[in-house]
């Protein structure tokens, strides 16, 4: 392990992160500070990209907002501002980066659900 990696590891990683996969429908709970108030904003959409990089790993979530406007947000996976990430459903996809989603809308921008056996509690 080199020294830069060891520095990155010394930061506290986000606990209880689910393993994300491209195509997953997720709800990202993000802490937002407004003045001295803090609130949680939820952003729900499809994971279209995962970037590795240890503590600097990031992922991009895409959703269709009102008036059919596509909105993408990129989060740092281990950011302390992320309170939690819920995986709503998995989907069957054949690519690591779902950039082709940007060209699709409506019915064609759907993904087939992939049923995953829940781990025995």
């Amino acid at each position, binding site marked *: 392990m080199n020294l830069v990696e060891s*520095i990155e590891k010394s*930061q506290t990683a986000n606990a209880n992160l689910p393993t994300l996969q491209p195509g997953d429908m997720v709800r990202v709970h993000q802490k937002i500070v407004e003045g001295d108030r803090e609130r949680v904003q939820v952003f729900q959409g499809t994971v279209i990209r995962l970037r590795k990089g240890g503590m600097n790993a990031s992922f991009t979530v895409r959703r269709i907002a009102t008036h059919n406007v596509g909105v993408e947000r990129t989060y740092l996976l281990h*950011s302390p501002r992320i309170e939690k990430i819920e995986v709503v459903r998995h989907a069957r996809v054949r690519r690591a980066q779902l950039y082709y989603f940007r060209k699709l809308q409506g019915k064609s921008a759907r993904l087939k659900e992939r049923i995953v056996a829940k781990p025995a509690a």
Partner: protein
Amino acid sequence: MKKLIGRKVGMTQLFDEKGNVTGVTVIEAGPNYVTQVKTLARDGYNAVQLGFGEVRKKGALTRGELGHLGQLKANDKHPKRRALSGVPAVGTLVESRSSKPAEAEEGGTLKCDIFAVGDFVDVTGTMKGRGFAGNIKRHGFHRQKKTHGASDRERAPGSIGAGTTPGRVEKGQKMAGHYGNTRVTNSHLKVLMVDAERNLIAVAGSVPGANGGIVVIQEGRKQ
């Protein structure tokens, strides 16, 4: 003057408590050994000489350097050899001007905890060589038009002087030439992390030179 010699390890990014992320350079700073204390009375000025970077390869240091670092033992033939304990054969020596040299002890060590999180430091190193560089890279000139009939003038410097008066090119005119491989100081960098156990310091922003290069960290002059 607080000063440390270190080695640039590489860059990464760190989160602060608010969740903001900052690009940082990690420097392996120390341990530094006090190899000599210079005093006004003996040397004409007050300074502390620091050493860093143990060299294991035989022949990397001359016998004179080894003797200065106390690596050669005194014997009957050479009774005057310098006795200095606690200092390994270090490859880099840097002097630090000090008003209180009496506080330092020859053979002592300095660790990176002389700097604290939140301090501002200046980091000096040798920048990467760029070879023969044009005016855009070397002096920050603007590029010319790529279209409108401009053929092979994109990165050209433009005019380098007037006409009959003065009839020559002024001295100091910025032109293409060798760039880089010089000593550069990046000043006013904030210390974001100090790890005394592993002798690592992280400063916000970039630091001159390639990874593995020797850098000198000192107290920031612009506080």
